[in-house]
């Protein structure tokens, strides 16, 4: 199938449609606007619904309703809007409802700006909302991978009855790249016997709920969730390794910063410097298996992020003190420059960094 040029934001929309998503609820925000614009046209073509909500608080609760009714459903936003959704996300996780939430991260905190950033890593992977819950968090690094991961995002959310977040940024959303979208096939949607769709023909009562008023019951619910999360942690860690064979230093980066780190690795290798890249594709569960696989052979890790150091905590936890973990980051919507990362690599290899 021929390649076409596609914008990242539009690829999210097309990927969702091809994954069988037929419901989108959202509220405008930059830098993800092309996604709602795309779906406002595309959803009617496939008999789906695009509905603009009056706020992100409303969007996420519309998602709650549609997910409880058994639909493949999604919403999308950026930092400020995702913050407003946190209550709803906690409810979705508590009620074990599948859905996909897209965050095209922008510079923060507060209103910040609309430039690309990765500063919502903590919010996505460590909670964000209240209570003891986890999101599955996917981080594509190209427009092609966005399309591919949208399918996985919906499948994972249904498989585990858990919200999945796809995290990109302004660069991934705005850029156009060649993609192969493949032939449209009929999405296979799993049965959802738990959905509360009415007691037609005397069906047993279903309840979509996150209230467990008796502490013993709420604890049991938490234990059940924890078991599910452990299973996800065991089965779903994903990462890409790039030129890690024989590497003494491994860069760890996701999304846009991973693209840049790849070119840094190439520059280093050309100069004979033994440097590789580990690119987490799942941010939760964090690919600690990937780190563990390298821990004996490498001398150090350098985490590169578009924030002031968030994922580095997971890299450190995974390295568990066995090897030093360094950090390089740009914040507030700035994109790291390959040359600067390269200089940082050299500094560390020369034993210069503290």
């Amino acid at each position, binding site marked *: 199938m021929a390649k076409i040029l596609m914008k990242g934001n539009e690829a999210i929309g097309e990927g969702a449609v091809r994954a069988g998503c037929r419901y989108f609820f959202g509220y405008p925000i930059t830098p993800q606007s092309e996604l709602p614009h795309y779906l406002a046209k595309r959803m009617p073509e496939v008999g789906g619904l695009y509905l603009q909500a009056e706020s992100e608080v409303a969007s996420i609760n519309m998602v709650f309703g549609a997910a409880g009714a058994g639909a493949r459903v999604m919403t999308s936003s950026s930092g400020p809007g995702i913050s407003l959704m946190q209550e709803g996300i906690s409810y979705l996780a508590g009620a074990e409802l599948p859905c996909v939430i897209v965050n095209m991260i922008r510079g923060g905190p507060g209103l910040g700006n609309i430039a690309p950033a990765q500063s919502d890593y903590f919010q996505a992977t460590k909670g964000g909302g209240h209570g003891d819950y986890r999101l599955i968090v996917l981080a594509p690094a190209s427009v092609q991978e966005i399309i591919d991961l949208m399918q996985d995002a919906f499948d994972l959310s249904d498989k585990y009855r858990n919200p999945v977040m796809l995290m990109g940024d302004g660069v991934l959303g705005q850029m156009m790249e*060649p993609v192969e979208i493949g032939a449209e096939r009929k999405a296979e949607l799993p049965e959802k016997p738990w959905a509360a769709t009415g007691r037609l023909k005397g069906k047993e009562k279903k309840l979509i709920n996150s209230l467990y008023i008796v502490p013993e019951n709420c604890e049991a619910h938490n234990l059940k969730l924890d078991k599910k999360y452990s299973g996800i942690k065991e089965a779903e860690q994903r990462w890409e390794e790039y030129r890690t064979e024989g590497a003494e230093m491994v860069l760890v980066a996701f999304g846009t910063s991973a693209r840049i780190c790849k070119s840094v690795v190439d520059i280093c290798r050309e100069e004979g410097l033994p440097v590789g890249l580990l690119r987490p594709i799942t941010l939760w569960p964090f690919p600690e298996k990937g780190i563990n696989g390298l821990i004996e052979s490498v001398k150090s890790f350098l985490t590169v992020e578009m924030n002031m150091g968030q994922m580095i905590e997971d890299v450190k936890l995974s390295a568990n003190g066995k090897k030093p973990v360094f950090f390089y980051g740009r914040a507030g919507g700035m994109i790291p420059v390959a040359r600067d990362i390269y200089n940082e690599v050299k500094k560390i290899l020369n034993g210069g960094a503290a």
Partner: protein
Amino acid sequence: MYEGILIAGFGGQGVLSTGQLLAYSGMVEGRHVAWIPSYGPEMRGGTANCGVTIADNPISSPVVSEPTVLITMNRPSLEKFEKVVVPGGIIFVNSSLVNIKAARSDVRAFYIPANDMAEEIGSGKVANNIILGALIELTGVVSTGAVEKSLYEVLPPHRHNMIPVNLKALEAGAGLAREQKGTLAEVG
């Protein structure tokens, strides 16, 4: 091969679609390509620009912060972006609308009266493609054949009647570049 091309002008001058055409042509040639616009409220006030990367290797950041080629369709763009071009890079200046010269001496500057030439050809709308023609002639970043093929893809069918004049524009730009290449003292 690596070219990072920054195209800048007023909104409405078609700089975004010209960039897309170029990226599409690179894709047709089997290269790695990326296109990215400036976006958001920085667009208020009516300027637009986009970066196009065409390369043999996978593209790291699609943001073209150090262009090898700069196309400026208006004066503010030249003033704003001239300084970020890599030494030895190329600047195309739409001299129909820009009445100043590039100040740098370590880059090659080509002055192309794109709007005037486009009017001569018969459509003011193809000014960008005049410069595109010159760019292709000078850098060989894509072939004219690839652009022609891409025009069929990026233009909606009811506008395919515009393809001949677009091709004429490419050729006119290429012709001018050939002339200028001969006479222009290599700077830097």
